[in-house]
């Protein structure tokens, strides 16, 4: 057998340029959104909803730091209750291999769609969906460590261990939202586990995700152990696009089985179960009018149900005004994929008929 018939490897001599180390580099980016809101039950208002500075630094081929520093509502004042400056995420990635990355720091909880992918041009509608505020408390980030990986063709997963929640700040209207610790001297009296599995192919992505964590803190009246007064969030989501059509859907269930003890201890009206979700469809009008251009003009409608009091513990009565049906229709004009001009009209109906409203919104969003 001559060498000609041997399976010959291709010998690539280690050329200097190939072997060179990645140069350290720092990247600045950002995103922001401005809202104008005209509700039927209040005066119109305009707001710098958020402007976020994205800063990342690449140390070498494997180590990267990434952060988002956010200013909400334009400014904060001493003694004022409006406005917020906060880290939305700040973590160090260590890329072990193409399939495996270790992430440590203030990480995004990988539940649902918006929490991880929240740049304003990526979603229709001026405000984020209510389910992504009151059920999945986006932008939900906590301190922890975890791994991200890819499995074969189309599958990816991530799993983190993070600090738990704080039950004393749960509320009737916003569920677990107030209980986030967001990296501020976070108590590790409780732990949280969170994970997401995703399957994607061109035009389609579906994911299931969850969070399970304690919220009792050190209050033994509420619960004890690392997962005392547990909160379990389970979500399923899908995104689809084909030609001018696109759609997305989300289903969320939030369970707080010890709500009765939380309510008796803190005088709150937390539900044992919150649930909801939405389905949204959109059609790009420019696909027909101006094919061959990057601009899009999406006409969309989102049908949403959000009930933060789907099931109440003993001693608490559900507030029907928190059982909401929200229909949002509007237009999103994207001259480029990362700039969006938005307009929508929202109709909010409730089970009790209280707190119903209609609302007209205008918005501007960008990311770079």
């Amino acid at each position, binding site marked *: 057998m001559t060498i000609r018939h041997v399976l010959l490897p291709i010998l690539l001599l280690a050329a200097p340029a190939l072997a060179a180390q990645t140069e350290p580099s720092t990247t600045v980016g950002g995103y922001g959104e401005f809202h104008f809101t005209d509700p039927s039950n209040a005066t119109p208002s305009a707001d710098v909803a958020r402007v976020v500075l994205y800063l990342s630094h690449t140390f070498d081929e494997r180590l990267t730091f990434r952060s988002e520093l956010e200013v909400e509502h334009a400014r904060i004042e001493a003694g004022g209750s409006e406005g917020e400056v906060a880290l939305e995420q700040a973590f160090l990635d260590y890329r072990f291999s193409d399939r495996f990355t270790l992430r440590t720091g203030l990480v995004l909880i990988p539940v649902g769609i918006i929490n*991880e*992918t929240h740049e304003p041009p990526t979603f229709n509608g001026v405000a984020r969906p209510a389910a992504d505020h009151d059920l999945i408390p986006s932008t939900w980030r906590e301190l922890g460590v975890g791994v991200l990986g890819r499995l074969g063709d189309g599958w990816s997963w991530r799993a983190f261990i993070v600090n738990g929640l704080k039950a004393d700040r749960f509320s009737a209207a916003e569920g677990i939202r107030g209980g986030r610790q967001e990296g501020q001297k976070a108590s590790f009296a409780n732990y949280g586990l969170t994970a997401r599995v995703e399957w*994607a192919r061109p*035009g389609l992505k579906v994911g299931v995700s969850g969070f399970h964590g304690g919220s009792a803190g050190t209050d033994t009246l509420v619960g004890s152990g690392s997962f005392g007064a547990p909160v379990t969030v389970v979500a399923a989501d899908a995104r689809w696009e084909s030609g001018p059509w696109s759609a997305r859907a989300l289903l969320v269930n939030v369970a707080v089985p010890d709500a009765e003890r939380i309510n008796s201890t803190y005088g709150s009206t937390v539900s044992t179960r919150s649930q909801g979700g939405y389905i949204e469809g959109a059609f790009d009008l420019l696909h027909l009018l101006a094919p061959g251009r990057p601009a899009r003009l999406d006409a969309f409608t989102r049908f949403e149900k959000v009930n933060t009091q789907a099931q109440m513990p003993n001693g608490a009565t559900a507030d029907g005004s928190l059982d909401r049906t929200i229909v949002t229709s509007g237009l999103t004009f994207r001259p480029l994929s990362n700039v969006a001009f938005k307009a929508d009209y929202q109709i909010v109906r409730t089970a009790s008929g209280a707190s119903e409203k209609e609302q007209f919104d205008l918005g501007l969003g960008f990311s770079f």
Partner: protein
Amino acid sequence: MRAPTLILLLAIALRGQAGAQTVAPKKIHASVGRVFGAGTQVDTLSTAHGPVLRALRHDSLLGYAVVRDVRGKDQPITFLVAVDNAGRVLDVDILVYREPYGGEVVYESWRRQFRGRSAADSVRLGRPIRNISGATISSNAVTLGVRAALEDLAALRHDGVLR
């Protein structure tokens, strides 16, 4: 002892105009071997559009490949485009993906969309290359990078540098 004369050397830096980032030679080796088949011999042409890998077997030309970088959100994505003698894409391979989100571009189901396309075809995100939600920046960057590579290879063919 017989010298392994058929083992051709790929010694020239694969630093294209975009400046290829660190990529292990064995990765390029594996990628070229996968696309053109085991036993492929490779040499490197130095061209006005950067280095071009030439794939041969038993002195017959199989095609060409280039290794390029495109910028994702803030990291370079290193990819390889392999074409046949007619300049049609045999495959696109993502050699190194470094971003925190958007890694779906490595999926075969996404990369497969480029196969058979040449510089004369439409290679655009949306039409006909479909996006993957949550990976728009990377999908767009790689699509633009592939198109630029195909145009460069077509120009070299036009100039007679490539057969």
